[in-house]
């Protein structure tokens, strides 16, 4: 006989604390959003250790799940003011930010009728996670909005709005960083601005812009 793993259960499940919230020691220095995730991790490892000893048939434990939705500026894929003049058109008044070409903060209340307007560097997308991500834009079922490939912003030929990732990222990353599908790779900490161009008639325009970030590698792969 070799070694026998002894059934020994010192504690089936982590004891529930009075507050009902799982809190791991490593979460204390982390941002609030991460507390939830660290809590889940503790639960999973705790359960596995308990079950591995085989002393019980089943176990269930309720844990409070505390998900904090970060304001756009603080999310892993952060959206924030560009710090350039045209960020006047980026509305950060609520948690979910928006692009509004209305008040310029300088007496202007909108684009000119029957005109082409280009507004570069309205807001920036920052990779605030730990992995490289491919960032891309997509028009979300919008009649008025379309997306151009990175660095090629120009007004559409008829009434409408175009959005594109700016060329500034070319200076961030050496070499080619744009895919044929129009994505731009951002390493952790890097940002890319978003440009807009408008062909206006006499009617207001609107659309919904989908901003996507896809990890190109994961920590588990490394």
């Amino acid at each position, binding site marked *: 006989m070799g070694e026998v793993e002894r059934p020994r259960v010192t504690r089936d499940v982590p004891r529930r604390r009075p507050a009902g919230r799982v809190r791991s020691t490593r979460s204390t220095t982390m941002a609030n959003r991460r507390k939830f995730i660290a809590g889940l991790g503790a639960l999973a490892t705790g359960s596995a250790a308990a079950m591995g000893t085989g002393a019980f048939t089943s176990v269930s434990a309720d844990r409070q799940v505390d998900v904090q939705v970060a304001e756009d500026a603080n999310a892993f894929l952060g959206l924030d003011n560009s710090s350039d003049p045209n960020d006047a058109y980026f509305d950060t008044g609520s948690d979910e930010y928006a692009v509004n070409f209305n008040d310029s903060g300088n007496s*202007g*209340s909108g684009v000119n009728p029957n005109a082409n307007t280009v507004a570069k560097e309205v807001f920036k997308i920052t990779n605030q996670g730990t992995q490289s991500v491919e960032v891309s834009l997509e028009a979300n079922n919008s009649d008025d909005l379309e997306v151009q490939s990175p660095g090629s912003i120009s007004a559409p030929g008829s009434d409408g709005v175009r959005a594109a990732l700016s060329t500034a990222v070319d200076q961030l990353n050496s070499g080619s960083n744009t895919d044929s599908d129009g994505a731009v790779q951002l390493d952790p900490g890097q940002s890319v601005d978003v440009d807009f161009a408008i062909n206006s008639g006499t009617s207001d325009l609107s659309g919904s812009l989908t901003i996507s970030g896809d990890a190109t590698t994961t920590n588990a792969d490394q």
Partner: protein
Amino acid sequence: MNRRNFIIGVGSLAAGSAAAVGTGAFTSVTADRSVSVNVADEDKAYLGIDKLDGTVYENATFAQQNTKNQISFDINDANGTQDSSDGVGLDSTYEFDNVFQIKNQGTQDVEVSISELSDSDFDPDASGVTVQFYPGSNSSSPLNSSPVTINTGNSQNIGIKVITDDPSIDDFSADATISANDI
């Protein structure tokens, strides 16, 4: 024991994934954000184009405002001109100082230019007419070749110069392009 191995395996996998997520990694994220564009009346737009006060600048009478206050110019039968006065003469240069103004109500300082109109801009068969725009009363500095800087919050009066030769047609009408580019 197989069952235990299996369970331990699951436990390790779960712990591994949790650790990766806990450090702020994400596989993918998408967010929809709204984009809205307000089309302003032209005098209130980012590049405000507006009439001048006719009580101060008599030539403001040549400027008209149409849908959404878009400006146009009618060098013909304008209010305040004599009924018998129908326009510019032949082989002449007319200068109309201070007809309208351009206001920078946007977010950046800009250089403004306005295209020159001549001959075929009006009509394929036209000849003998050129129209230029210039700052205020500085008719020797046309905006098609000498852009003027307008800082945010500032405005610039614009005049119109009409140069005629012996035009082949009587009535000329065309759109001029006003361009403002950040400096």
